[in-house]
C-alpha cells in the first residue's frame, strides 16, 4: 500500500498533469495552505527563506533545481515576504540560453523588480540581445520584460529594436511590440513622438489581435489630441462595422458576441472623436444604431457593449433616434434585477441627463430604489446622479439625503467628498438663508474636521457679504439667523474645530449686531468655548478675538462695559499662555478695552469685515512729522543700499525683488549684523525708549489725525502708544526705519484682521509690544536689516493682497460659481498678510539668542504652517495656468509635427490614409479566412471540453490525495471547480 502510494506520487510529479515540482516545494505550498494563522504562515515562510538563502548560493546547482528555487522565491515574495537576496539569481537566469529557464528568469524579474531598481542595468543588455533572437518565443519573453522594466532612461536602448519588431512575421511579437511602444508613450511621450505614425499603420495589420492591441495606444493619443486623428474616423467606423457584422474570426467571439472587447474600445475612441464634431458624428450614427439593434442584451458582455454605445451617444453630436435607443436601454438596465445593470443604468442616466433632463423623470422610482439600496456602490453612484440633476427646486431634498448618508458612513475619503458636494450645492442653489445656515451647520457638525478649511472661510465670507444681493435686510436676517443657530449649537459637546472657528468669528462679528442678545450673554458663551476646548489654540484664538470685537463694539456704542469674571480670568490666563499668539491676543484685548470711544471706532469699526483696506505704502501720514524733525536738525533718511554700497546686497534688497521673494520661503541666511550699526546707534534712543514704556497716551491720538488722517488709526493699538517716540528717534537713524515700517505693518495687518482673518492678523500687535519693550532694554538694533526686509515684504504682501481681494470681491458679486476661485484669492490674501505679519515675530527672540546671529533666528522663527499653506495656495492658483500654458502647447507641438511629417514624407501621401481604410476590408476578411482554416487544423491543444468534466475532476482529486495533499478544513473549496 505504502509502496503504491509512493509510485503514484512519483508518477504525479513526473507527469505534466502533475505539478512538475519537487516534493519539497509541494510540501511547502501545502503547509502554507494548511497554516491556521498568519503567524504560522509567516514562520513557515521565514524558514523557507532561510533554507533558500543557504541553498541558492551553493555551487553547482543543477539548472532545473535553480529554476525551482527561483519559482519558490516568487512564491515567497507573493506571500508578502522579502526575497531580495535572490533577485540577482533571477537576473542571472535571464542570461541562460535555455528558453524555459530564460522565460522563468524574465517572469521572476518582472515580478520582483520595479523599473528603477539597480539591477535593471544588468538586464537591459540581455533584453537587447533577446529582442534580436530568431526564436520568437524568446523575443516575446523579452518584450514582456520591456513592458515592465524599461524606464524613461533606458527607452533609447531598446527603442530601435522594438520598432523593428513591429514588422515581425509573428503576430504575437507585433502585438507585444505595440504594447511596449504604448508603454513607452506612457513613460515619456517625447521618446516615441516620432513613431506615432506606426500606430496608424498597425491599425491595418492583417491580424485582428494586433489591430485590437493598437487601439490601446490610439485611444490614449486621441484622448490627448482628437483633432489630429479626425481623418481616422472613417477607418474606425468601417472596422467597427465589420466587427459588428461578424467578419472577424470566430476565435474572437465571446459569448456569441463578435469581438466585444474590440467593439468597446472602438466605441470609446469614436466617442472621443465625435465629441463636439457634427461631421464626424454623422459617420457614426448608422453603425452605433446597428449595434444598438443587434446587441444581445441578455449577457453581461452584450450590456457592456450597449453601455459603451450610450456613452458614445452622449458624447457625440446629438442624434434623436440614437438618444431614444439609448433611453430604451437605460430603462431596461434600471428595470433589471441585477445590481450591476442598475449601476450601469444609473451611470448612463447621469450621462444622458445633460442632453435631455426629461429622461430621468420616468425613472424616478427606480432611482429612489437605488438610493435606498443597501449596496454602497450603487448608492454612491445614485448620489452622483442626484448631484448632477440638482436644481433649486430639489436641492433641499437632495442635500438632506446626502447629509443623512454622510452621517451614516465611516469612510473618511468619501465623507469628505460628499461634504464638499453638499456645500457646493447649498451655495449654488440655497432656497433661503435660513436653510443654508442650517445645512452648513449640519455639514460642519458631522463631517467636522474633514471639511476643507476653505469651506469655513467661504462660509464666513458669505455671512459677511450676504448672497450678493444689495438687500441689506436680507443680509442682516442671514446674520441673525446664523447667530441664533450658533448660540443654539454652541452648547453641544465635541464640535469640530473648524466649525467652532466659524462660530466664534460670527458671534464676534455679529453677535450683538441686532441687539437681540446681550454682550454678556455672548461673551459668556465665548468663554465657555475657550474653556471647554482649552487644548485647541486656534479656537481659543478665535474666541479671544471675538471677545475683543464684542467689547470694542460695546464701547463704540457707548454702553457700559461689563466684563464677566470668567472672561477676566480667561484673559489673565491667556496673557500668561505658552502660546505667543494667544498671549498677544490677550494683551491686545486688554489694551483695546482701555481705549476711548473714538480710538475704538477706528480700530474696530463694526460690520467692516468686507471693507477693503487702504495701505499707505509711502507712510505719507508721517511727512509732516518728518519735516518738523528735519527742521529741528535731524538727519535725513538714507536708504540702506546707499549706506552700504554693496552691489549684491543692494540688488537683493531691491524693493521689487523683495515683493516677489517675500511670498516664498527664504533659503539664504540673513546677513550678519553690521558692526558699524552699533557704533552709529544714536545714544538718544536709550533715553527715549525708557520714556516709552509706561505712557498711556490719549494725547498721541489727538495729535495724529492732522498728520495722518487715514491709516494712523491702527497705531492707536496697544503698540501704537509706545511707538510714538520710538518713531521720532529712530526715523532718522537706521533703527527708526525699522520701527516705523513695523508700525505700518501693524496698521495693515490690523485692518485686514477686521476682514476675514481675525486670527492671523492680530498677532502683530503684541509682537510689537515685545519688540518695543525689547528695544527699550537693548538700544542697539542689530537686526534692523532684517526688519527692513520684513517691512518690504509686508508692503509687497499687503499691496498685492489688496489688488487680489478687490478683484475677488467683484468675482463674488458676479457669480457664486466662481466662489472657489475667489476663495483662493481671498485666502492668498489671508496668508500673505499672515505671512507678512508673522515676520515681526522674527524680531522677538530673547536677547541671548540674537547673539548667535540672524540665520538661526530666521530659520526658527516663522511658524511653518502659514508659509506652507501659502505655497500650496499659490500653487493651486497657478495650476490652470500651467496646464494651459505649458502642457497643452507641448502636446500640440508633438502632434502637429508628426502626422504632418508622416504625410508629407512622400512614402505615405495623404491618400494612403484613406487607402488604408479601404485596405482594411480585404485585409481583415483575408485574415479571417486564414484563421478559420488554421482553426480547424490546429485545434488539438485547445480542444475545449465544455462544462465540468467529472472524470477529470475525480482523477485530479485522486492524484492530489495520493500526493498527500488533503483538503484542509479551513478551505473546503480548494477542490471545488471554480465554475462549480
Amino acid at each position: 500500500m505504502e509502496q503504491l502510494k509512493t509510485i503514484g506520487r512519483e508518477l504525479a510529479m513526473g507527469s505534466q498533469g502533475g505539478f512538475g515540482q519537487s516534493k519539497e516545494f509541494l510540501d511547502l505550498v501545502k503547509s502554507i495552505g494548511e497554516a491556521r494563522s498568519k503567524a504560522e504562515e509567516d514562520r513557515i515562510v521565514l524558514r523557507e527563506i532561510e533554507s533558500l538563502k543557504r541553498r541558492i548560493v551553493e555551487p553547482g546547482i543543477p539548472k532545473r533545481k535553480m529554476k525551482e528555487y527561483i519559482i519558490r522565491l516568487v512564491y515567497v515574495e507573493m506571500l508578502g515576504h522579502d526575497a531580495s537576496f535572490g533577485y540577482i539569481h533571477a537576473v542571472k537566469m535571464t542570461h541562460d540560453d535555455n528558453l524555459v529557464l530564460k522565460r522563468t528568469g524574465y517572469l521572476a524579474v518582472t515580478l520582483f523588480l520595479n523599473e528603477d531598481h539597480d539591477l535593471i542595468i544588468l538586464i537591459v543588455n540581455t533584453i537587447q540581445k533577446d529582442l534580436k533572437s530568431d526564436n520568437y518565443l524568446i523575443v516575446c519573453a523579452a518584450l514582456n520584460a520591456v513592458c515592465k522594466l524599461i524606464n524613461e532612461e533606458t527607452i533609447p536602448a531598446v527603442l530601435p529594436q522594438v520598432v523593428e519588431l513591429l514588422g515581425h512575421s509573428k503576430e504575437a511579437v507585433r502585438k507585444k511590440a505595440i504594447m511596449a511602444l504604448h508603454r513607452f508613450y506612457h513613460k515619456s511621450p517625447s521618446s516615441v513622438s516620432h513613431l506615432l505614425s506606426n500606430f496608424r499603420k498597425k491599425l491595418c495589420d492583417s491580424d485582428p489581435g494586433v489591430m485590437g492591441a493598437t487601439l490601446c495606444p490610439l485611444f490614449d493619443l486621441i484622448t490627448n489630441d482628437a483633432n489630429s486623428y479626425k481623418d481616422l474616423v472613417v477607418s474606425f467606423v468601417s472596422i467597427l462595422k465589420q466587427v459588428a457584422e461578424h467578419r472577424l474570426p470566430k476565435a474572437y467571439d465571446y459569448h456569441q458576441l463578435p469581438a466585444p472587447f474590440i467593439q468597446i474600445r472602438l466605441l470609446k475612441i469614436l466617442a472621443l472623436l465625435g465629441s463636439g464634431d457634427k461631421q464626424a458624428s454623422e459617420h457614426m450614427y448608422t453603425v452605433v444604431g446597428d449595434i444598438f439593434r443587434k446587441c444581445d442584451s441578455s449577457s453581461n458582455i452584450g450590456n457592456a457593449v450597449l453601455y459603451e454605445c450610450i456613452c458614445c451617444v452622449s458624447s457625440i453630436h446629438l442624434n434623436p433616434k440614437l438618444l431614444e435607443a439609448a433611453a430604451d436601454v437605460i430603462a431596461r438596465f434600471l428595470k433589471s434585477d441585477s445590481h450591476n445593470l442598475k449601476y450601469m443604468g444609473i451611470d448612463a442616466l447621469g450621462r444622458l441627463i445633460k442632453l435631455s433632463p426629461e429622461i430621468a423623470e420616468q425613472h424616478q422610482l427606480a432611482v429612489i430604489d437605488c438610493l435606498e439600496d443597501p449596496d454602497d456602490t450603487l448608492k454612491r453612484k445614485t448620489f452622483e446622479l442626484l448631484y448632477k440633476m440638482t436644481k433649486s427646486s430639489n436641492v433641499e431634498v437632495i442635500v438632506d439625503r446626502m447629509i443623512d448618508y454622510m452621517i451614516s458612513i465611516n469612510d473618511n475619503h468619501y465623507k469628505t467628498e460628499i461634504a464638499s458636494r453638499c456645500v457646493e450645492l447649498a451655495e449654488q442653489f440655497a432656497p433661503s438663508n435660513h436653510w443654508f445656515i442650517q445645512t452648513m451647520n449640519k455639514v460642519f457638525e458631522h463631517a467636522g474636521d474633514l471639511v476643507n478649511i476653505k469651506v469655513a472661510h467661504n462660509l464666513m465670507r458669505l455671512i459677511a457679504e450676504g448672497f450678493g444681493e444689495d438687500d441689506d435686510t436680507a443680509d442682516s436676517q442671514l446674520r441673525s439667523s446664523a447667530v441664533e443657530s450658533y448660540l443654539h449649537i454652541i452648547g453641544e459637546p465635541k464640535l469640530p474645530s473648524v466649525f467652532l472657528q466659524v462660530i466664534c468669528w460670527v458671534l464676534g462679528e455679529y453677535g450683538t449686531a441686532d441687539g437681540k442678545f446681550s454682550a454678556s450673554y455672548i461673551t459668556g458663551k465665548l468663554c465657555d468655548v475657550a474653556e471647554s476646548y482649552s487644548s485647541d489654540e486656534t479656537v481659543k484664538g478665535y474666541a479671544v478675538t471675538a471677545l475683543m470685537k464684542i467689547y470694542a463694539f460695546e464701547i463704540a456704542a457707548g454702553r457700559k462695559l461689563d466684563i464677566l469674571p470668567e472672561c477676566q480670568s480667561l484673559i489673565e490666563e491667556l496673557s500668561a499662555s505658552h502660546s505667543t499668539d494667544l498671549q498677544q491676543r490677550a494683551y491686545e484685548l486688554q489694551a483695546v478695552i482701555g481705549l476711548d470711544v473714538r480710538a475704538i471706532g477706528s480700530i474696530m469699526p463694526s460690520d467692516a469685515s468686507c471693507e477693503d483696506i487702504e495701505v499707505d505704502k509711502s507712510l505719507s501720514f508721517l511727512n509732516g512729522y518728518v519735516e518738523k524733525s528735519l527742521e529741528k536738525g535731524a538727519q535725513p533718511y538714507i536708504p540702506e543700499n546707499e549706506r552700504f554700497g554693496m552691489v549684491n546686497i543692494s540688488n537683493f534688497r531691491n524693493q521689487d525683488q523683495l515683493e516677489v521673494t517675500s511670498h516664498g520661503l527664504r533659503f539664504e541666511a540673513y546677513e550678519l549684523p553690521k558692526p558699524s550699526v552699533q557704533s552709529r546707534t544714536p545714544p538718544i534712543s536709550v533715553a527715549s525708549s525708557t520714556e516709552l514704556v509706561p505712557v498711556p497716551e490719549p494725547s498721541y491720538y489727538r495729535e495724529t489725525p492732522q498728520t495722518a488722517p487715514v491709516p494712523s488709526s491702527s497705531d492707536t493699538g496697544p503698540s501704537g502708544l509706545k511707538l510714538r517716540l520710538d518713531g521720532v528717534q529712530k526715523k532718522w537713524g537706521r533703527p527708526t526705519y525699522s520701527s516705523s515700517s513695523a508700525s505700518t505693518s501693524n496698521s495693515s495687518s490690523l485692518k485686514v484682521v477686521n476682514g476675514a482673518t481675525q486670527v492671523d492678523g492680530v498677532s502683530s500687535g503684541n509682537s510689537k509690544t515685545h519688540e518695543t519693550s525689547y528695544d527699550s532694554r537693548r538700544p542697539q538694533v542689530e537686526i534692523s536689516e532684517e526688519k527692513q526686509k520684513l517691512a518690504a515684504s509686508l508692503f509687497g504682501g499687503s499691496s498685492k493682497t489688496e489688488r487680489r481681494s478687490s478683484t475677488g470681491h467683484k468675482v463674488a458679486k458676479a457669480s457664486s460659481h466662481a466662489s472657489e476661485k475667489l476663495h483662493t484669492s481671498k485666502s492668498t490674501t489671508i496668508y500673505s498678510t499672515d505671512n507678512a505679519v508673522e515676520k515681526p515675530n522674527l524680531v522677538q527672540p530673547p536677547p541671548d539668542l540674537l547673539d548667535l546671529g540672524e540665520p538661526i533666528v530666521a530659520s526658527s522663527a516663522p511658524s511653518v504652517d502659514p508659509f506652507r499653506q501659502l505655497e500650496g495656495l499659490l500653487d493651486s492658483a497657478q495650476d490652470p495656468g500651467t496646464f494651459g500654458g505649458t502642457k497643452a502647447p507641448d502636446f500640440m507641438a508633438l502632434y502637429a509635427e508628426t502626422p504632418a511629417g508622416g504625410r508629407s514624407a512622400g512614402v505615405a501621401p495623404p491618400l494612403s490614409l484613406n487607402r488604408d481604410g479601404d485596405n482594411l476590408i480585404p485585409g481583415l476578411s483575408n485574415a479571417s479566412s486564414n484563421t478559420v482554416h488554421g482553426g480547424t487544423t490546429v485545434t488539438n491543444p485547445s480542444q475545449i471540453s465544455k462544462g465540468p468534466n467529472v472524470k477529470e475532476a475525480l482523477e485530479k482529486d485522486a492524484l492530489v490525495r495520493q500526493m498527500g495533499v488533503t483538503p484542509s478544513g479551513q478551505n473546503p473549496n480548494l477542490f471545488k471547480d471554480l465554475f462549480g
Partner: protein
Amino acid sequence: MIRFILLQNRQGKTRLAKYYVPLEDSEKHKVEYEVHRLVVNRDSKFTNFVEFRTHKVIYRRYAGLFFSLCVDITDNELAYLECIHLFVEILDHFFSNVCELDLVFNFHKVYLILDEFILAGELQETSKRAIIERMGELEKLELKSQAILSAKLTRRTVESRSQFRLPSPSLSPLVAA
C-alpha cells in the same frame, strides 16, 4: 488601464498578484489587505464594483477565490467584469476544469497566461484560442527542455558516479531527490 490584478481566497491569502503600476512592497500589502476586506463580505446580490481610493475594483468570485481587478474610474465596469470571466475561462481550458489547487501549485504558469492576456495594464489579446495555442506551444517546449535538462543532469550524475547507464528519457529522473 488595469492597475493590478489580485487573486485571493476567502481568508485573504494571495494566490496571485500582478501590479502594472510601481508600488512599494508595504503599499502592496496594504492594498491586498484592503481589497480583501472590501470584497469579502459583500452580498452576492450587490454590484461587483467597489470604489477603492481613487480607482475602482471590479471583482468576481469563483468558488472560494476572488478575482479582483483595479481599474480607472472611467473604465467600463461590465467589460472588465467579463474580462475576469474570460481569464477564468482560459484558465479553465488550460487546466481543464480549473480548481483553486491548480492555481496554487501552478501560479507561475498562471503568470505566464496572464502575460499573454494582459500586457502593461491593457488587454492585449481577447481571443481565447490564440492564448491557449500560445500556452500549448510553451508547454510543449517546456516538456522538451525539461527532458533535455534532466538528461544532462542524469548524465552528469552518472558520470560523477562513474557508472554506466544510458541517459533515460523516462519520467522518473524528474522527481527530485
